[in-house]
Every structure is written in C-alpha cells, then in structure tokens.
C-alpha cells in the first residue's frame, strides 16, 4: 500500500535532485603553491532522483561515491557541473537558502560513534540541528527530539534522552544518527555506508529501519555502499560507479539479472554466495586495481582491467551513455 502512495508521489513530481556533469576535483599542491595535479574523485556524473525513491550507489573503495555524497551535501565545492535540488541549482543559492537546503537533506554517516559528539547527551545532539535552524522554543525541541527517537524505535525516548553516545550500543548510536538526520524533516537522506561499521546482527535492522522511514515519509534515499548483496532489498535503482563516473544504472532487478557493463558483471561475480560448489570452482575476478584518480587512463577507465576490451576504441575515447535495454543505461563501447 505504501508502495502505491509512493508511485503517486513519484508521478506527481519531477526529479527532486538532478546532477549534471558534476566534477569534484581535489587539487594537489607541492610546497603549498605548486599545482601538480588533481585527484578527480567525481569526474562527470549525471543522474536524476525522483521524489520518494531509494537508490543505491555501488562501487569499490575509492571510486568517488563518498566524495559524491559530500558534494551533494555541500561539504565539497564542485569543480564543475551542477546539483539541482527541487528545481534550484545549489551554486546559485545565497547563505540562507543554502542553510535551508541543508535542512532538507539529512546525512547518515558510516561511523556512528564518531558521528556523535562524545561530550553531548542525546537530547543535546538532537537539539543542535533545531537550534541551528532557529527553533527557539525548548519544549518544542524536546517534543521533536522525542518524536525522532520514536521514529527510529528508540523507545521510550526518556530512557535515551539523557544518555551519552558511549553508553549506547553501535546499533542504538546509528539510530540516534538517523534520528538527527530526520529531526529537521528532510526531503532526502544521504546515507554513506550506514551499516558497514556495525555488527552483522544489527545491519539488517538498521537497513530495514531506514527503508521503512523512507517509505513512511516518502523520502528520497541515496544510499551509498560497496555491498551489492544487501542493495536489492533496500533500493529501487542502482548506480554503479567506477573511478569517479557512473558506468551503469538500472532498476534493481534489471541490473542484477542483466548486468551489461563488464565491471558490473565482475562485481556481481564477487558477491559471496554460500554454495558448497564454490569451493571447487575458481571465479573470474578482474585482475589489477582501480586506476589512479590523479591520472585516470585514457578512454574507458576500466579498459586496463577489462577482458572484453576493444583495442583502438576503449583505450582511446570514453564511451557515451548507451541504453542497451529499456531503462537500463551503461557507458560501454560493447553496446554501440
């Protein structure tokens, strides 16, 4: 039922977030002033997120997915390109509008203990965003803190309000982080590997919590992970990133069942599968390492590791975005 409500919302509104040709480069300097190059963490990314959908960005460590998240949050300035949220480009916002934008986007981090100031109790942690956004009434702040704690299933809230982060378990800490992300009633939540530092036993709980909150409130959820195995249950669309670019995007089932890009295919092979036969067969995993983001290879970034590389094409020119199957985009010369 909630799915149908989401459908309505999705069709009623256009993209809540559009990213156009986004580049985030970090300049490397020698002796403080000599420019010796740039780390191209995000290097030409395009996508649209519809209101109320949950998407996952998947890729290896260092593929630029966290830099992408931080650029979306305004923590990094984009070198080039645009982030358009609810019809307005972030680059054109003034200070007050930027702050209002930050209230519309919640952020859930990887390390729940590090994400909570150790010297504040939960009440204070939840009050802080409200204070920053001008909720002066203490009773109102308390009320909203309670609501947020209920929302993340930390109840009764009284038991948690006066606790300090170190008194909570990892899962509870992450729930507090989620409560903090929700307390400003955002339209979108960016979760950067929200469960990778948690115990395996609580991972699913936290993911289900995020998913149910997302569905209940019709939030847009951008969910960054390196773990393809969990994605299918908690996202509707998947973006596969490699070396600062999106190489493939599709609906979850479409992508998992019909991976087009050789990199995606390799990623899917690497998912651990509890099958006793695996002990006797060697899986084919691409050799080599992800390329240097300082000097990415010419042409397709994946071509040095690709076993289907077309000499003279893949190593010369970056592939255009192609659509080999309906609603399934990939950047690979194989589908020209």
């Amino acid at each position: 039922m909630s799915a149908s409500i989401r459908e309505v919302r999705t069709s009623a509104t256009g993209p809540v977030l559009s990213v156009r040709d986004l580049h985030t480069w970090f300049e490397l300097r020698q002796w403080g002033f000599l420019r010796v190059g740039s780390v191209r963490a995000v290097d030409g990314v395009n996508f649209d997120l519809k209101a109320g959908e949950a998407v996952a960005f998947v890729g290896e460590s260092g593929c630029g997915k966290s830099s992408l998240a931080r650029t979306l949050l305004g923590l990094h300035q984009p070198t080039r390109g645009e982030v358009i949220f609810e019809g307005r480009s972030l680059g054109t916002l003034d200070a007050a509008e930027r702050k209002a934008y930050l209230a519309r986007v919640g952020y859930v981090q990887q390390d729940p203990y590090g994400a909570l100031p150790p010297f504040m109790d939960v009440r204070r942690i939840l009050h802080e965003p409200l204070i920053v956004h001008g909720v002066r009434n203490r009773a109102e702040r308390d009320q909203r803190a309670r609501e947020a704690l209920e929302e993340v299933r930390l109840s009764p809230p009284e038991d948690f309000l006066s606790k300090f982060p170190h008194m909570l378990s990892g899962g509870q800490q992450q729930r507090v982080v989620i409560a903090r992300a929700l307390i400003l009633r955002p339209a979108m939540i960016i979760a950067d590997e929200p469960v990778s530092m948690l115990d395996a036993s609580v991972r699913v709980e936290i993911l289900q919590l995020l998913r149910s909150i997302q569905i209940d409130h019709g939030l847009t959820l951008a969910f960054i992970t390196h773990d393809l195995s969990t994605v299918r249950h908690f996202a509707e669309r998947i973006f596969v990133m490699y070396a600062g670019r999106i190489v493939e995007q599709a609906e979850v089932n479409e992508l998992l069942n019909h991976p087009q890009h050789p990199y995606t295919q390799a990623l899917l092979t690497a998912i651990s599968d509890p099958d006793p036969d695996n002990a006797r067969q060697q899986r084919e995993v691409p050799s080599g390492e992800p390329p240097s983001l300082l000097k990415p290879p010419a042409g397709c970034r994946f071509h040095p590791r690709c076993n289907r590389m077309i000499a003279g094409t893949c190593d010369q020119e970056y592939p255009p975005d192609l659509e080999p199957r309906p609603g399934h985009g990939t950047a690979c010369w194989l589908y020209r």
Partner: protein
Amino acid sequence: MRQLLDGLRRLGQYPSALVGLAIIFALVGTAVFTVVTIPYGQALELWRGGDPWRMHPVNARPVWVDRIAGNNSPRTMVVSSRDALIEEEPFVGGSRMRIPLEFDFGYAGFPSELNLFLTSTHVEREPFVRLTWETPDGREFILGGRRLAREERVSISQDWELERRLGRVPHVGLFAEPADDRPPQVLEGRYRLTLDVISFEEDARVDADLVVYGRVHGLAGTDHQRRDLMVALLWGIPVALAFGLLAAVGTTVTTLVIAAAGVWYGGWIDAVIQRLTEVNIILPMLPILVMVGTLYSTSIWVMLGVVIALGIFSAGIKMYRAMLLPIRESPYIEAAKAYGAGNARIILRYMIPRILPVLIPTFVILIPSFVFLEASLALLGLGDPVLPTWGKVMNDAQTQSALYHGFYYWVLSPAALLMLTGLGFAMLGFALDRVFNPRLRTM
C-alpha cells in the same frame, strides 16, 4: 560537561588533590577575609607608610620567631597620660601639672627606640614641660625641658646630649643597670617618666604618649618604614590570586579560540597565526615586561594586559593545534556542517569542548606561574607602585639588605606564601591531570 563532573567526583580519590584544594580554599578564604577587613583604599593608605605607623618599631621581628629562638625580646609599650594619675595645681592664668608615666619593664632585651608624643590644646601661649626619667633603683635623669607646640614629638633616642651623658644610646642607657660593664644588662622593674608641665592658659590640656618600641611585632614583623608586613602579606593573597587567575584565563581562552579558529579555517589564517606564534615564542617575555615597566607604567593592570597580550600567541597555540587537528576531521564535525552549523558554532561548541577536559589541569598549573611572574616583576622593582604585594615585600627586603642584617623573616614569609600558592595549585593540577588524562593513570 558530564566528563567534567565525573572527573571532579573522581578527584576525591587523590589525597594530593584534597591537600591542594585545602590550600587553595584557605588562600581564597584569607583573601576574602583580608579584602573585607582591610578595604582596598585603606590598604593603599596603610602601605603608603608614614603617620599610621608611628607607634610601630622599625624592622621588628615577628613574635613567634623570637619565641622559637627562646628569647624574650621587648614588645612595644605605649604609656598614655590618659591612664596616669595627674596632679594638677591651678594658678591665676594657668596651671601646674605633674604627669607620671609609669610602666613595668620585664623583658630580656633593650627597647629599639624611645619616643614621646605630646599634644597640647593651648591657643596662644605654649606650655612648658620638663622631663625626668626615674629608674627602678631610684636614679633620676633630667631629660631636659622644652616649650610645646600643639603636636610635639620628643625623640629621646636621638637626644645626642643625653647619649653623651649616658655613654650609650638613650634607649639602652636608660634601661641598663648602673654598673659600667659591657655589654649592658637590662634592669627590670618599674620605670617612671615624669612630666612637669606649666601651662599658661587656664583650660589648656596636655596629653602624652610614651612609646617604648619593642624589638618584636605581631605575626609578620615590620619593615624599615615601620609598616606591619602583615598588611602586605595578607593583601598579597588577593592580588596574587587575581593576577594569576586573570592572566591564566585571559591567555588560555584567547589562545584556545585563536588556535581553534586557525585549525578550522586553515589556509592563510592558520599560516598567519602559526608565524605570529613562532615569532612570539622566541621573544623574551621578561625583558619586554621590564621595558614596559620602565618606559611606560608599572601598574599591575598594565602588566596584566601585557602578560595576556604576550601570552595569546604562545606555545599553547601549537599544543592546542595538535590536539584540534584530528578533531576537525572527525565525522561529528562533518555532520554539524551537513546540518548547517556555522563556523563560530563549530569552533566554540564542537571543537573546543572536546579538548576542554584535557586543558583544565594545564590551566590550573598555569595560575601559579603567573603569580610567580608578578612576584618576579615586583622583585625586579617593577611592582605596582601602590599595591602591597609579596614581590614588593621581597623587593624592599632586597634593597634594605634584609638578609645581611639577619631579617630572614622579611624574605622568607612572602617566599613561603608564594611557595604555598604554587604547591596548592600544583597538587590540584597534577591530580586533575591524572583524572582527565587517563594515560597517566595506572589502571
């Protein structure tokens, strides 16, 4: 906050902290008591010296020093005509008065000085007075006669003629046994100074105070200007504590905020702060303070300002920077940025509170170092010209060659108070260090 309260609660486990706290509370209590009983204006007035101290001996030892040494040195005695049996014979146009000033002298040492203070209420015609000194064994010395002004001070000790007659300084000769042996022996018993006054006005009244100055005085002794050192020792406490605390707060807070701002903004702001600090670290503080004191002002508040100004870009900035750099990168700061917290909020509410517990011990230990700095300045002659402080006392002691003359108490009592202050804060500080820096604790 919780960490702070927890830490303070744990402090009870450290005896050194309790001793330190006891010393600090005692000092603070005494300081409050001093400021209440001797108000600021009165303290300045007293420390200026002069008239309020005319009844006090010069360079008298503290009483307890004398007692410990097993001596029975004389204390100061004031014999007033108000308590004496005055014989008065009026005549036409005046009166004749005989004022006997009697006192028992039973100390094992000679007084340090002998003065007679006379006041007369005459209008025009000055009364005439003749002084006779009578010893317990019945000898009489005529100390001469004189006309009286309204206020007259007869310095018997400095009567050269009398000294020649006695063969000794008067305050020794008048109290010595008649035998001409040396060294002179004190003659114990009842002495009497008789004043024969002839007044030429009918209702003119003459009052006399004979001051037999002792060689010991009070708990702290007196200095070369007859000032009771207790005033300076007591007033030194609030001055030292206030100076130490203000300087420590001023430098710590500014340094912390500047270090945090440098770490947070980075770039050229950080570079400027770091270069300023490096330059400031190699500038010698004491010579600069001496220059300010010599060329500009030695007011303690000016000195405090300069100390704080020089302390802002101190080595502390480097330490705080090293502590804050990893905090700047911590996820909770990133989260704060992501929900829109401003720069000031991040610096003051998110970065500084994180290192505050670690700073408290440093701060507590910093207080006495500024107390010592103020004392060193005063010792160098750059103390506040009007305020009584411990450093000033030591400076006076030094210029008066106190140690050469054997006035140890003059140097030792302010030094002991300085050390006590240092000890109290150091003991508390080290205990706090163990509480807040768990690595120092053996678990």
